[in-house]
């Protein structure tokens, strides 16, 4: 599987790591869409199920975010984790047109991390309300919330 990926995208496989029998491949964010498309449609691999998509914040490292894609192939009963690094004001290409499941998952990553996805059809907050300020899962966001020590004022 990794060999096929390396053959197809020789310059894009930056790192392959295996921990507890789970394979993680790191790729540059420019190529994520093409790689996902290939992995989903290749007749031997058939990663047609996007199990999960989420962000991870490594603040203060730069680029600070990682977007993690967990793919699953029903044909081979195999999982693959793809990762790509994204900076604070950069955007990564949306995979919504490959897997519809990515629609809400990307909205969630946008909502909680502020990672923006290019070409997403409907990039709005999903769990928090419109007009909310900040992105709670960022490491520089306090657990108790930014307005914890301020008096409650329903008028404001």
């Amino acid at each position, binding site marked *: 599987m990794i060999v096929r990926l390396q053959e197809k995208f020789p310059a894009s496989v930056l790192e392959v790591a295996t*921990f*507890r029998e*789970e394979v*993680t491949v790191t790729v540059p964010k420019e190529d994520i869409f093409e790689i996902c498309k290939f992995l989903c449609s290749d007749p031997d691999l058939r990663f*047609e*199920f*996007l*199990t*999960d998509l*989420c962000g*991870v*914040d490594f603040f203060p490292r730069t680029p600070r975010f990682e977007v*993690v894609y*967990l793919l699953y192939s*029903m044909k081979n*009963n195999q*999982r693959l*984790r793809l990762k790509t690094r994204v900076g604070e004001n950069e955007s990564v290409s949306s995979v919504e047109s490959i*897997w*519809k*499941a990515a*629609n*809400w*998952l990307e909205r*969630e990553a946008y909502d*909680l991390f502020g990672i923006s996805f290019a070409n997403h059809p409907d990039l709005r907050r*999903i*769990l*928090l*309300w419109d007009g909310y300020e900040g992105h*709670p*899962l960022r490491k520089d*966001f306090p*657990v108790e919330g930014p307005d914890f020590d301020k008096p409650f004022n329903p008028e404001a």
Partner: protein
Amino acid sequence: MAETRFMTINMGPQHPATHGVLRLVLELDGEVVVNVTPHLGHLHRGVEKLAESKTYHQVIPLTDRLDYTNAMGNNLAYVLAVEKLLGIEVPRRAQYLRVMMTELQRIAAHLIWLGTHALDIGAMTLLLYNFREREEILNIFEAVAGGRLTPTYLRIGGVSKDLPEGIEGKIREFVQAFPGHLKEYETLLTENVIWLKRTKGVGFISKEDAINWGVTGPTLRGSGVKWDVRKAFPYSSYDEFDFDIPIGLNGDVYDRYLVRLRELEWSNSIARQALERLPKGPIIAGDPKVALPEKEMVLQDIASLIRHFKIVSEGFQAPVGEVYASVEASKGELGFYIVSDGSNHPFRMRIRPPSFLNLGALHKMIVGGLIADVISAIGSIDIVLGEIDR
């Protein structure tokens, strides 16, 4: 010339048929649904953020409160992920106890689904029957773990307590009586004309769409995909149990109903097998750095007391790495993705919520159908907002 106009209707967040605080904004052309916009997050508690400031043990009670109808299953998914991260083996007795409890929990969760789903569509009697059986399961949980809705029974490396005296007889009674109760439910619904009219051909989703939208669990199997985490990636010795994965043919509300009924049967059978073949031995892994000592020992022995204090107050250091472990929860694939930086708490804990992705496919199921069928479709995907909003 007649003017076409769509009507916008707000459904929820306080609506009995949305099973929690889900808000749907429906656009209607007469009685036909043209578009739906779900608004989530009314129950968002920031569990993923909270977990980053807790030790690995302290996260277990948080997981009970995700899908609160399936607390044992949530515990299991989380502890499996941590055990994978640590690379520890769980004793066989604990594995069997976990299987037995999660299968009983699946029965309880499916019973809530059946009762409320039938109630939404107008069959009220069933709810009373379902809660009668669910009560017995919750009594078993209370005796075993001390809690009913949120038992927090599982521990990293095993389970918190062994079975109390006399409970095996109670569980045996339950698994023997349950197939008879299941027949009662079927008599009320399976060939009921009103039930058939409200569910057959309603809320359809195809195999390809279900996969593309990331749907899992009974909702996926109702569309004819024979896939179950328990078979694909057997955990907690599920490969030693004899069971089948029921699937549907048409991908409508009725098929999802049939799939869940057959699952009830199989869950009962797995629970019985686990009870009959329950191995003897320890209930928690021997690793003293991770596993809590038994309460008895803590009260008698100074070394155990110190160990207990260390684990509870500062936890343990996990190796650097990232793992994903998932279980077949009652709603679908529930996964935990944990990134560890080597400290005593998760650096990042991501929950892969099955209800969240299943609800994403709601659009596919109800657009083009009648507004009355929205109720059946929501009921049939069996969502719990505690897990969607986290």
